[in-house]
């Protein structure tokens, strides 16, 4: 009995041990299964019926395809590491429309959640269109064909189902190769290109390739004009054929385009027509196969990042929805970032640098993914007129927005912080003006100003940009625009077009000022382009035959120098005239470097019509119509003065900086510091005028026509100045309210449009400011101490 019990116990222990071993084995094997990669790939032809419009060229005018040169395909890779699965689809289409994405997600197999389905287009310009419902993109994509949308979406979904059903134990490897000559920068000779060819190889347990994916940046636009209406995958079509020939027909060749915004395909074998297309595809396939053939594949950890963030505000807000879709895929240490449009190559290269810094060993940028928001140009191109920038609508810092948003999806490194924003500053209404103090970095300062004056900035945009576009005053006089039916809201199209036309005026502006305007736009709830149009609407209006939006000289100005200023050495008097109804604003700025400057202007501009900085540098401007129209070849004068105010140190540097602004026309600028003063006259050439006899007037009255109201005004100013041997602040203040009865209108120093009078004491770093009151008189002077770290303007007198 005992023996039996022993045997029983022994058996029991043995059984228990077996169960434990079995359990442990099960757990470990389950863990192994979880880490084992499954992969499947499939392709389905999506060639549309003849007559379907092709997508990509506006000059096709939406005409339908007349022939098929080579089929177009949807290709899908299914990956599953046991924890994360995904579908990566590449289609021979120009771009992925929202309509297509939405429908594909409805039809897609439910094994993969929608946020892990990534749709990309190769950007062939000979793939079919007809899948855009919105009117504005139909010009490139052709008429909307719901039946084509449906069949394309169904075939893409079918490809996914096949890839999923063909899944098997697999292994994955990735690497990069280089290319030279397969792509080139289409905008700048010898400009940036991406030499990298990214390669992912997926193979089965026997090492046979399931799929090979190439990532390469170049527009598939090699098909010649006579074949414009032929369906073709362009060079990716030849790449597929060649690669599948090299790797075996069981392998699904895949292709994702890179940061190809300004990249076109090269022609290393110097062929023409289809042979050129074939050459690029064949050469690309050869290099991809070389890389893929050497890759060692294994299991991988997959991570899919997904976000549907709010986009930056855009001037074309009627064309684009407010959110988009962003994806990242991480395969071990490889990062793929998917852009919903056409990023220029600079964005791809910078994205890669950032990824490598964060610890990834390789990074591929994939464009044309999941959505189509046109082009994304780098900051430095935004002011340069070219096709890519003309099709960029998210401001000059959209690249930074992408870096930030992608950083939030990456598992390595810390996410980049959102742009800093401070509390909206208090607006103090004093003495007929609004006073604010802004501090911090450029974006923060701009945001504070934008938020403080949001209402008037938006109103200014409506009044000086939208309304003139709507009325036809600010739209081109070409037939298309003027013949539009009256029921068409032309401003919807004209305002973005005007924004594109205005961007070259950004050229030469310091990037910090762009950041400030970006912040100001965000603070006011506008797009960067809208904010910029507010800044330069007056200059644009001056180019038209309609009444200028600001018909105001914003002057008078004069300086007493040396003995004439007594102990002060330099005194400057200035009346700020403005015909508009804008309420004057005093903006006291302390930048991130601790520099301080005070501007008297308006809430809607970051520019300076009148201002002084903490080194005693003074700037004032006067419009002189006889010297010519303001030029659109560079930024408006107030922004040039603003840069000088913030950046220049001393009169000499400021004068040099002014003279370097060769685009300026039609202005006099008075610039002074505690040592002297100058007037720079901007006509066909810039002329620098110095003081004579210790006096310097904004305009030399002797050189003015007798019927020019400035002649009487400056003659009167000269007379008043000559009457005093030594001028004081009080005497200058008295002169600025002079309204000689023999003078009328603009002939008077203090006239009906004078909004503010300012007396500068550069040596003491003081500004005395007074504003027109409701009864038309000038209010009391308030003194602003413009020394560094002084108490905020408006807080004392």
């Amino acid at each position, binding site marked *: 009995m005992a023996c039996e019990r022993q045997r029983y116990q022994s058996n029991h222990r043995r059984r228990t041990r077996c169960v434990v071993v079995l359990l442990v084995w099960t757990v470990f094997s389950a863990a192994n299964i979880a880490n084992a990669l499954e992969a499947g790939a499939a392709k389905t032809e999506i060639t549309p019926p003849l007559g379907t419009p092709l997508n990509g060229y506006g000059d096709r005018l*939406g005409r339908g395809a007349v022939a098929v040169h080579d089929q177009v395909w949807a290709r899908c890779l299914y990956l599953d590491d046991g924890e994360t699965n995904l579908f990566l689809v590449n289609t021979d289409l120009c771009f992925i429309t929202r309509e297509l994405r939405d429908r594909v997600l409805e039809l897609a197999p439910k094994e993969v959640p929608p946020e892990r389905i990534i749709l990309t287009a190769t950007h062939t310009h000979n793939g079919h269109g007809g899948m855009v419902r919105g009117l504005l993109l139909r010009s490139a994509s052709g008429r909307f064909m719901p039946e084509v949308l449906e069949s394309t979406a169904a075939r893409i979904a079918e490809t996914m189902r096949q890839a999923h059903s063909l899944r098997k134990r697999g292994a994955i490897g990735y690497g990069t190769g280089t290319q030279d000559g397969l792509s080139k920068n289409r905008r700048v000779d010898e400009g940036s290109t991406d030499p990298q060819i990214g390669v992912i190889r997926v193979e089965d347990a026997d090492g046979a390739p399931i799929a090979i994916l190439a990532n390469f940046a170049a527009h598939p636009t090699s098909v010649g004009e006579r074949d414009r209406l032929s369906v073709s995958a362009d060079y990716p079509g030849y790449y597929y054929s060649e690669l599948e020939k090299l790797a075996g027909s069981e392998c699904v060749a895949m292709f994702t385009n890179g940061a190809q915004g300004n990249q076109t395909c090269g022609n290393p074998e110097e062929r023409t027509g289809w042979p050129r297309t074939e050459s690029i595809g064949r050469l690309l396939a050869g290099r991809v196969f070389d890389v893929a053939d050497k890759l060692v594949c294994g299991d991988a950890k997959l991570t899919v990042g997904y976000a549907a963030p709010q986009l930056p505000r855009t001037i074309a807000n009627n064309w684009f929805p407010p959110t988009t879709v962003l994806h990242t895929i991480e395969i071990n240490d490889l990062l793929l970032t998917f852009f919903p449009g056409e990023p220029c190559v600079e964005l791809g290269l910078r994205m890669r640098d950032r990824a490598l810094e964060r610890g990834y060993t390789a990074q591929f940028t994939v464009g044309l993914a999941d959505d189509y928001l046109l082009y994304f140009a780098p900051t430095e191109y935004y002011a340069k007129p070219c096709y890519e920038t003309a099709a960029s609508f998210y401001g000059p810092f959209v690249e930074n927005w992408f870096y930030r948003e992608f950083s939030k999806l990456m598992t390595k490194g810390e996410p980049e912080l959102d742009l800093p924003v401070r509390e909206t500053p208090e607006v103090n209404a004093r003495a007929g003006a609004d006073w604010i103090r802004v501090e911090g970095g450029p974006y923060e300062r701009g945001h504070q100003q934008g938020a403080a004056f949001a209402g008037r900035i938006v109103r200014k945009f409506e009044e000086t940009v939208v309304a003139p576009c709507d009325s036809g005053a600010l739209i081109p006089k070409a037939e298309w625009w003027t013949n539009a039916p009256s029921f068409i809201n032309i401003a919807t199209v004209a305002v973005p077009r005007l924004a594109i036309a205005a961007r070259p005026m950004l050229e030469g502006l310091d990037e910090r000022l762009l950041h400030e305007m970006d912040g100001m736009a965000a603070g006011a709830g506008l797009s960067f382009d809208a904010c910029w149009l507010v800044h330069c609407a007056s200059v644009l209006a001056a180019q038209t035959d309609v009444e200028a939006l600001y018909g105001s000289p914003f002057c008078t100005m004069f300086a007493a120098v040396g003995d004439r200023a007594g102990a002060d050495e330099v005194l400057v008097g200035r009346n700020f005239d403005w015909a508009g109804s804008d309420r004057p604003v005093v903006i006291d700025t302390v930048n991130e470097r601790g520099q301080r400057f005070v501007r008297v202007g308006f809430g809607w501009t970051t520019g300076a019509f009148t201002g002084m900085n903490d080194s005693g540098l003074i700037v004032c401007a006067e419009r002189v119509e006889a010297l010519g129209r303001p030029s659109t070849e560079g930024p408006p004068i107030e922004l040039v003065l603003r840069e000088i105010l913030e950046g220049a140190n001393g009169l000499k540097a400021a004068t040099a900086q002014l003279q370097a602004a060769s685009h300026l026309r039609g202005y006099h600028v008075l610039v002074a510091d505690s040592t002297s003063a100058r007037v720079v006259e901007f006509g066909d050439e810039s002329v620098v005028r110095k003081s004579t006899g210790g006096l310097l007037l904004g305009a030399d009255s002797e050189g003015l026509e007798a019927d020019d109201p400035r002649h009487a005004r400056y003659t009167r100013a000269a007379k008043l100045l000559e009457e005093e041997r030594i001028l004081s602040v009080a005497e200058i203040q008295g002169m600025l309210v002079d309204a000689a009865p023999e003078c009328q209108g603009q002939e008077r120093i203090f006239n009906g449009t004078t909004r503010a009078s300012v007396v500068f004491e550069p040596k003491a770093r003081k500004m005395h400011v007074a504003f027109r009151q409701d009864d038309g008189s000038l209010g009391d002077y308030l003194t602003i101490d413009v020394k560094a770290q002084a108490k905020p303007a408006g807080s004392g007198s």
Partner: protein
Amino acid sequence: MSETVRTYSTQGGPRKRRLQGFRPRHAVLIVLLVLAGYAFWTTRDVHPIARFIPADQKYCIEFVELLETRTRIAQSSVWSALPESVLAGEVPVLLGLDPESAGAPPTGMFGWVFNNLVPGSLYLTGRDLETFEDVLVLSKMSRVGCLLERFHGLVPGVDADPAGGLGLRKVSDQGLYYAVRGRVLMASPSREALIRSLVLASEDAMSDEVLDAALGRAGREHVHGTVTLAEDDPLGHAFSSVGFAMRIDPSEAQVACRARLREAFRDQWHTLLDGAVPQPLTVPPNGMLTISADFGKPVRDVWTGLAEGLQRYGIEAISSEDWRAWEQPPEDTEIGPQHFFAGLLGPVGPGIRLSWCGVDLNEIVPVPEIAGTFDADAEAIQRFVDATPAAPDDALPWASFARYDEETQRVHLPMAGGPSIEPTAAPCAAGLLASTSKTVADTLVATVPTEHLPGEGNLYIHVRPHPCVEMIVQAGRLLVEQSLLRGHTPESYDATTGEWLASAASIEHVSTLVAVERDELRLDLSLVCTRAN
């Protein structure tokens, strides 16, 4: 025999005896008889209506048996289907029917009185065609109505207005004067107009025959009448007089008009109207808005006639010079759709059928799809085919050159966008088919109707408002979705167009047939609603 002298007197004796048997009821009876006799006598129908209508009135309208028909007229869905701007919604109110009671006739004592005051037809006449301030309303009352009117003094608000013995009454709160002669009731907001009517010499009044002929000029329906127009009256530059007859049924209205053309107007349109006589018109291709016309001349002359006529009114929408330039463009001109159509259609006709088939909302831009069939013999078609210039040898297949496809016998002109912006022409059973859309042409070519419309005329127009409005609304929505429609957000657009759609939905179709017969223009219009109240 007695010699007694007998005295006879007219008093006493037998009379006394008679009085001895007299009863008061006899007196009442006698009074009643006298009153009845008086009532009968004074309410005799001795005056014809025409006697009170001046012969020089500009308009005269008869509402036949108004009391019988007014409920039916007021309850017709026609009024709710018409736009508010034509005061259609006011018609039931103007007819004295309470909209709250869905047009039910007045009841009770008021209804009884009303029915007796205006028991038959009602006539409207006057001279002022702009303000209608002198409108004179005439009707024949029943005897009871006449008697009731005698008690006007008991009705508050009705005052006597002697008017030099004419015996007018004034309804103060309505600003209305009226008078009664025999059984004829006359009322007008204008005292002068009423007096004029009452003192009218017989030679200045209409005769029954003249009135009857004038009223029945365009037929006899629920409402019929005639309007005489001076040159400075509305439409007076075109017509010297218009007769009309209108029938209002629960869900449809029929209007017949006969308008006398002025000589000057006819001269202005002579290019179009000369030689035009009513013809059998061929049914146009199916569409939301269809037109069939035959002015006895080719399309070129119809266009020219229209252009010249409109030009006289300052309307430059079409021009005969343009047509000539399109039809015979200079050699270096790029052939556009206008050249295509002008060259194709100029010589064909005289039968012209046009249809607005729809709007292709999915085209590169939304475009209307228009098709037409034209009387044309094989020779005319061949002439056009022969005249189609060959595309240059190096022309790309999709370049905008008119091309003739021998296999399908179609001429087409590729343009921007897809097939809905590809003008196409082909021979068909009705002659020649031409369309702005290749798709429409392909669909219609084998099915174009060849039968005739009922009746003869020169112009037939048929509109189905709801599909038309719906198409326009859908096209507009595409614009408003991208802020391309001035003054509208999607919400405001839906609110506005919702009203349009609802209004248009109540009309099934409107059709009109116009014929020119020498110096008279005949127009028959039919409006059919989708529902009957």
